[in-house]
């Protein structure tokens, strides 16, 4: 039987010792390969670009109605409505044009940490400390709560959720360190994603042209790229010095941006397989809760614990402007589906919608 701590498995030589040694060698090789291709800094290449002159941006709408911290929000595919969820256990659906509240749903739990619109715009999902993801068909005829349906349950809080392709499936991330893909109708678990060593705090889908992958960020400081069909982690990135709170794909699908408690945002390029930019300033010492790109990917919006939103030039790696207004942490932010506006949600109980009237912006790229 087993002897001396050595257990012979499928093939000879596949002992724990051999595997561990191989793992160490592979890690070193990975670092070496990545460094070999690290031939230039992003900001250096972007030196030729004109500096962005950002004027005339201010909050245009303030959405008031929550009675506690706003934790999450999501734009409707109709580019006009927003769903938001709060520590008070409520989920509200807003018309961002008029600021009217169209639905207010009371959840049986407080700390509704995640909410999302389905692609049809007729369904929303939310959940949080109840460990569940529950979907609510939106109806003007009856109380939205009556037709609700619990789709999936984790073994810890649900921190994020999104509908990958249709109203039929939902992807969740959880404090139990896993992500999961569920069938909405049957509640069946379709795929499980194991790999993080800490709470999953955020996830984002790759832009549809690039296939069935998504990215997750975790308290284990890792950024993982997943294949939705196989459940396999296909790529991983490290670099952050603390919990990652937000991850977003660059609209090109070739990179992901992250925001972390370490007060930095970073850009990881999938094809170079490494971190290519870090967005930070010595004066910024508070954690980042949420990031999102503008439609072209040139601007990276980031919401911080110091109540501000920093707008970064993603290429030149400098800050373009600071947005003030919230009276507490910015917990979530999101660019609208057509890129016309930015919504921000805060622990000050409000959401704000911002758009740019006009600006003097010239961005020439001279090769």
């Amino acid at each position, binding site marked *: *039987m087993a002897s001396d701590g050595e257990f012979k498995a499928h093939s000879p030589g596949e002992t724990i010792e051999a595997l561990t040694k191989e*793992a160490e060698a592979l890690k070193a090789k990975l670092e070496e390969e990545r460094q070999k*291709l690290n031939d230039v800094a992003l900001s250096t290449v972007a030196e030729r670009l004109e500096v962005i002159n950002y004027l005339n941006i201010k909050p245009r709408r303030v959405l008031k109605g929550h009675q506690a911290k706003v934790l999450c929000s999501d734009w409707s595919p109709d580019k006009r409505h927003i769903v938001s969820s709060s520590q008070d256990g409520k989920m509200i659906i807003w018309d961002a*044009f008029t600021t009217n509240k169209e639905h207010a749903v009371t959840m049986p739990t407080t700390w509704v940490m995640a909410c999302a619109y389905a692609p049809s715009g007729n369904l929303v999902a939310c959940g949080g400390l109840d460990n569940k993801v529950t979907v609510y068909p939106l109806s003007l005829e009856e109380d939205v709560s009556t037709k609700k349906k619990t789709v999936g349950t984790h073994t810890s809080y649900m921190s994020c959720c999104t509908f990958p392709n249709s109203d039929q499936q939902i992807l969740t991330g959880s404090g139990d360190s896993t992500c999961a893909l569920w069938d909405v109708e049957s509640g069946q678990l379709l795929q499980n994603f194991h790999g993080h060593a800490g709470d999953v705090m955020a996830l984002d889908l790759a832009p549809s042209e690039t296939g069935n992958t998504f990215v997750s960020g975790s308290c284990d400081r890792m950024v993982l790229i997943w294949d939705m069909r196989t459940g396999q982690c296909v790529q991983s990135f490290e670099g952050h010095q603390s919990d990652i709170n937000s991850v977003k794909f660059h609209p*090109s699908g070739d990179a992901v941006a992250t925001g972390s408690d370490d007060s930095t945002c970073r850009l990881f390029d999938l094809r170079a397989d490494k971190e*290519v930019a870090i967005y930070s300033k010595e004066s910024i010492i508070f954690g980042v809760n949420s990031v999102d790109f503008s439609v072209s*990917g040139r601007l990276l919006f980031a919401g911080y614990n110091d109540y501000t939103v920093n707008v970064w030039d993603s290429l030149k790696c400098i800050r373009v402007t600071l947005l003030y207004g919230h009276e507490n942490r910015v917990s979530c932010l999101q660019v609208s589906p057509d*890129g*016309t506006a930015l919504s921000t949600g805060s622990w000050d109980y409000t959401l704000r919608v911002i758009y740019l009237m006009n600006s003097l912006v010239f961005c020439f790229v001279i090769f």
Partner: protein
Amino acid sequence: IGLSDTAVMDMMISNLQQQRQVTEQLRREAAIKRISVSQAVLDIMKYITEHEQEDCLLVGFSSQKANPFREKSSCTLL
């Protein structure tokens, strides 16, 4: 085999499985085809340049008409 022996074996199997998973994951990642940062960055810049003019949060609205949030004086047919 006594009870303690099977328990020990179970633990060794799971440690081995775990290590195998870790090593296999690293093998997959090491096999990824990488491109140089300079090439990757140029591609990102190309995408951005191609889409900059449609980026309302970057270049603003060309006119009030283009702004979906503008105050509307009359009803719009949806």
